[in-house]
């Protein structure tokens, strides 16, 4: 991977930054573990755990999508080196979310789960987002990046679709108050718009 800027400073940012980001990404899990053991999940604990893990999966997905625009904005190339870790943590919380749904919420009642997957649009898009994340997580290693070459980037562009599906999943499950999912939608819209190659004045098409 090409490095930009003076090597010393940059490698220090990555060297100290990586463990810091790792710990930060585990904080929601620690908070959740504390709430479970301390009985601080409220009246409906299954719903609380389900919403908590889902929200953090979506948030970290958006944080991952913010890396590239942020790098362009600041010119700090080393930011890119946090992207894989952030993406894998997003996947981690999404896996927890799906596991909580299957085991705690639906109690592995497969008939009910199949009905959900075939009849309920918000579960269909949510599950599609999860399934599409699996190949991205699998091919996130250095070896797979090398092996896939140009096709790696093509494959990983599906993260845009995944993020849209994730926001739709949230939007479609809300009963009346769309405020919170719309905040996520707005953030995603900004992050996607930042990637559009807007024609610049003074530069030919």
């Amino acid at each position, binding site marked *: 991977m090409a490095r930009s800027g003076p090597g010393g400073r940059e490698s220090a940012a990555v060297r100290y930054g990586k463990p810091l980001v790792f710990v930060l990404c585990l904080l929601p899990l620690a*908070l959740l573990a504390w709430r*479970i053991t301390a009985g601080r999940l*409220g*009246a*409906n604990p299954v719903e609380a*755990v389900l919403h*908590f893990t889902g929200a953090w999966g979506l948030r970290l997905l958006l944080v991952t999508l913010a890396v590239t625009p942020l790098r362009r904005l600041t010119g700090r190339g080393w930011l890119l080196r946090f992207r894989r870790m952030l993406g894998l943590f997003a996947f981690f919380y999404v896996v927890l979310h799906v596991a909580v749904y299957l085991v705690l919420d639906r109690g592995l009642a497969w008939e*009910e789960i199949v*009905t959900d997957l075939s009849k309920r649009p918000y579960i269909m898009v949510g599950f599609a987002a999860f399934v599409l994340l699996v190949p991205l997580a699998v091919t996130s290693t250095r070896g797979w990046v090398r092996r896939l070459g140009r096709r790696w980037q093509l494959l990983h562009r599906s993260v845009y679709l995944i993020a849209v599906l994730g926001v739709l999943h949230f939007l479609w499950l809300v009963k009346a108050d769309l405020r*919170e999912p719309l905040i996520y939608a707005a953030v995603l819209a900004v992050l996607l718009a930042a990637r559009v190659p807007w024609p610049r004045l003074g530069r030919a098409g």
Partner: protein
Amino acid sequence: MPILKPPAIPPSEITPPAVWARRRELLKAALALAGTGAGLTLGRPLLAASPAGAGALEPIPNVRSSPQSTDEPPTSRDDILGYNNFYEFGTEKEDPAANAHTLRPRPWTVVVDGACEAPGQIGIEEVLTGFTQEERIYRLRCVEAWAMVVPWVGFPLGDLLKRFKPTSQARYVAFETLLDPKQMQGQRRAVLEWPYREGLRIDEAMHPLTILATGLYGQVLPNQNGAPLRLVVPWKYGFKSIKSIVRISFTATQPVNTWNQMQPDEYGFYANVNPGVDHPRWSQARHRMIGDGLFASKRKTLMFNGYADQVASLYAGMDLRQSF
């Protein structure tokens, strides 16, 4: 024989009663302060377990027990007061407990009008003293597929309706919640079309299971549970049981109900609990009982929430898939 003397307690050790009564609030405030840095939990309070305003309220005297009560164990008072759908105070379950302190349930007057011979109004004190208050321990099934068992205090709605002498034109009863964005901060946003409205067919309204609740757990209603007067119709989804009622009207035609007006394909007028008719977005076959915990499985939902023996005859010959 030596008499054991109780150890002297210095006055400084005794908490003033006013502080003691507010202990939950104070604890919550202290913890909320400590937790502001880490409170990134979907915009919900980090400490949702002990609801605000859970202190003792005014007890209702001479409450009679009722054969209509279920013998299932009631849900904890903390859960009943801390997990509410009452959009007038916010759309999260914890919002009503946090925001309903601005409601002033006294004095309170309910207007009764429409197709009746003696329209008028009735104050909450008169409601509390003029009707025999009973404890009715009912199952409550929310349309969102969770349930509680609530020890309501109240009296049959029919007893109150009869005082106003409905005419033969009165085929339905319409209800309205208070409209006052100053007291109900949730009404400052048009999440629903305010005021909240509900309605029943007259035979449903006169059914002995249908009550107006004035309290729960032996005390007057907490604000977040619909103080000072709310409807409870135990065989229908919770949203039918309208809270903080200010108006009851007898009508000839089917009245508007808020959720039906908002999403007619998702919420019907009847809203009878029915495990065979799914909500378009989720199954109604099973529900989660509040208090069962993280690892419990859901319970089977019963037709009419288990009150079929008493109410099924009201709907004889009706297609409950059509009239959901």
